[in-house]
């Protein structure tokens, strides 16, 4: 089985290195094909490993080689395949494979086709390292690796100012969170003497509570960056500057869930600090609502889906924070399927619309793009949590978990957010596919995507529909690893009321969205309508003015302060002091060189001056020696 582990891990690396050989060359179709095949190999291996674990096999643990070994610190390149990592591996390789295949079509006309696959495969490798590592340092390697690839892929079209800006923003914001993560690692190391998961988790119970709280908080700060939780969330929406397959893979299905994975992986730790858990759950709930509210009014198709991702990440954190790790993991998996599907569908639409992103400029695309329409609609139903699609099972369990644990506020907010989710999802679907045709006035002739792109989406479509039936086997698999328990509402009546009530609420929102946006008189908003001038619309549309706030109160001051430090402090104070000292010495020389005029009589006069000074000095010393007793007693009287 170890063989499959290595194949699953290293096939993406091989793919990346192979593709990178051709980065400077014009498009080569075989690069994309080979890369896709290699990722498929990785996927097959992951599936084999998955069945092995699902069949009750022992977790596989290998140690490739030593990485860092100094002092008491020992970090190997160790990898583990257990119930948690195999789930992640399955999700990551499946989505990656499909996105690779899809990208063959999507990036068809891009001159940097080969470079795209190099980065994309490198990302898959980093992500595999992240989920398969058996220690926190390895996780951190993957963590930074996905950050790097995300930087490279957001800024893939590097000639676009907005893209490179967004790439740098994402990288730097993640770095802020990574500092928290690093501190968490330091704390773990100095308190448990290791960074290996098994060692660390066997010892966490011995640590005192306040240390554990700090560790929990710092690790979670790391998770907040990667999973774009408030207040580090702004990068995710800006990351939509990257190519759409990248958004599907990295900024929806895999990388952004790394934070959730970290919390799930550290479950023995978080179990011991329920205070932190509540904090995580509350923040998650807040983000779920907060992001959904921004999605309500946004006018950028990809950003709407990005906000919905953010919102769903909030759900996952809410579940993980409440100790329902398996539910979080299950929602992570289900979300990966339908969200990737949604993004790839959006990619088709973008292709068809020549990179137009405003859904108000689309409309009535369902005739032209039938399959895309079907898939995106189903994905939206899944996202909204309509029975019997994937989202229903995962999201409903989160609500139940919150309810059973008596966190009614969290439950209420999440329930309300579910309604919002349904609304904005179908606002998008209605605007894109239904209503009147608004694109022809912009001279666009849409067409359906290549067949194989649609086929690449088919497995996601399939899983988005049937993922629900996997819930029971999944639960049985992770039951032991995650200490999972089922959430049963004792009263049968309450259970059914909740279930049906939720469904009714969601379906009502969907109908409302359709009624509002599936119309033939929709026009492209121009900022004059009454809705658009309302305060709450403006606040939501400007993302609560948070990006503005960051720009004005963090970025600008930093830039100005830097300039100030350089021009005013470094040059005018520090360096000027050094030069000042040199200048004093130089000027003293310049002033006194007059003595060396070469004129004998002047020199003689200076000689006399020197003589006088020496005489005075000798006299003073003589007197001081003569009266030393008195001087000393005088000084001691002064207290020196």
């Amino acid at each position, binding site marked *: 089985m170890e063989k499959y582990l290595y194949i699953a891990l290293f096939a993406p690396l091989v793919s990346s290195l192979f593709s990178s050989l051709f980065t400077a060359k014009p498009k080569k179709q075989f690069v994309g094909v080979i890369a896709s095949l290699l990722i498929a190999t990785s996927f097959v291996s992951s599936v084999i490993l998955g069945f092995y674990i699902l069949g009750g096999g022992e977790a596989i643990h290998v140690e490739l080689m030593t990485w860092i070994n100094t002092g008491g610190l020992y970090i190997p390149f160790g990898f583990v395949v257990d119930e948690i990592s195999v789930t992640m591996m399955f999700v990551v390789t499946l989505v990656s494979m499909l996105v690779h295949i899809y990208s063959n079509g999507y990036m068809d006309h891009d001159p940097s086709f080969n470079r795209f696959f190099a980065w994309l495969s490198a990302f898959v490798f980093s992500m595999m390292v992240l989920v398969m590592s058996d220690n926190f340092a390895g996780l951190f390697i993957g963590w930074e690796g996905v950050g790097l690839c995300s930087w490279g892929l957001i800024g893939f079209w590097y000639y676009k100012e907005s893209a490179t800006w967004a790439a740098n923003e994402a990288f730097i914001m993640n770095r802020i969170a990574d500092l928290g993560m690093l501190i968490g690692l330091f704390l773990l190391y100095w308190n448990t003497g290791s960074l290996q998961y098994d060692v660390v988790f066997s010892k966490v119970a011995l640590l005192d509570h306040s240390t554990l709280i700090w560790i929990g908080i710092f690790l979670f700060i790391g998770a907040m960056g990667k999973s774009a939780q408030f207040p580090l969330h702004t990068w995710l929406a800006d990351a939509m500057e990257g190519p759409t397959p990248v958004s599907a893979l990295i900024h929806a299905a895999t990388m952004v869930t790394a934070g959730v994975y970290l919390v799930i992986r550290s479950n023995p730790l978080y179990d011991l600090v329920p205070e932190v858990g509540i904090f995580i759950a509350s923040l998650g709930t807040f983000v779920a609502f907060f992001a959904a509210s921004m999605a309500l009014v946004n006018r950028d198709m990809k950003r709407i889906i990005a906000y919905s991702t953010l919102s769903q990440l909030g759900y996952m954190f809410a579940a993980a924070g409440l100790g329902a790790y398996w539910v979080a993991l299950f929602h992570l998996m289900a979300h990966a399927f339908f969200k990737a599907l949604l993004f790839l569908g959006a990619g088709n639409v973008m292709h068809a619309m020549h990179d137009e992103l405003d859904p108000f400029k689309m409309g009535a695309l369902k005739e032209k793009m039938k399959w895309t329409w079907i898939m995106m609609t189903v994905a939206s139903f899944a996202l909204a949590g309509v029975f019997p699609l994937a989202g229903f099972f995962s999201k409903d369990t989160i609500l139940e978990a919150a309810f059973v644990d008596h966190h009614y506020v969290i439950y209420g907010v999440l329930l309300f957010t579910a309604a919002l989710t349904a609304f904005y999802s179908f606002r998008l679907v209605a605007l894109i596919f239904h209503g009147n045709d608004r694109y022809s006035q912009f001279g666009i002739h849409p067409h359906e995507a290549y067949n194989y792109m649609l086929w690449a989406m088919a497995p996601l479509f399939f899983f988005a529909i049937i993922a629900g039936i996997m819930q029971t086997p999944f639960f049985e698999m992770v039951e032991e690893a995650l200490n999972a328990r089922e959430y049963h509402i004792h009263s049968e009546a309450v259970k059914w009321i909740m279930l049906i009530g939720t469904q009714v609420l969601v379906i009502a929102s969907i109908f409302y969205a359709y009624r509002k946006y599936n119309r033939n008189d929709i026009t492209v908003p121009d900022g004059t309508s009454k809705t658009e001038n309302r305060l709450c619309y403006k606040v939501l549309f400007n993302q609560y003015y948070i990006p503005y706030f960051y720009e004005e109160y963090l970025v600008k001051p930093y830039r100005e302060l830097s300039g100030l430090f350089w021009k005013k402090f470094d040059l005018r104070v520090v360096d000027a002091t050094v030069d000042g000292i040199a200048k004093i010495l130089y000027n003293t020389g310049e002033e006194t*060189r007059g003595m*060396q*005029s*070469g*004129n*004998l*009589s002047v020199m*003689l*006069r200076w000689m*006399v001056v020197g003589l006088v000074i020496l005489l005075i000095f000798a006299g003073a010393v003589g007197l001081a020696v003569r009266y030393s007793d008195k001087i000393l007693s005088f000084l001691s009287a002064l207290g020196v």
Partner: protein
Amino acid sequence: MEIGLSHYLILSTILFGIGLYGVMSRKNLLMLFFATEILLNSVNIGFAAISHYLGDLTGQMFAFFVIAIAASEVAVGLGLLVVWFKRHNRIDLDEMMSMRG
């Protein structure tokens, strides 16, 4: 009034002052030599007087040394002065600026 040590030393100081003034104010090299001689001789008087006062001959020996050195100095110095005068036709100190830094 008996002539005592202090009188000699006062004389020596006065002569030293005159010599010092001469060294500082004279521009003519020859005059400078004279002033230097006065300086040296003021020291000689001091040496001799103290030697006598202490009853130790070392001071007088030093005075002789100084006289010998002063004589040789004048000999060499005047030789150089003559050469300088022949070359430049002047012996004004202010014009001897070849050592200017």
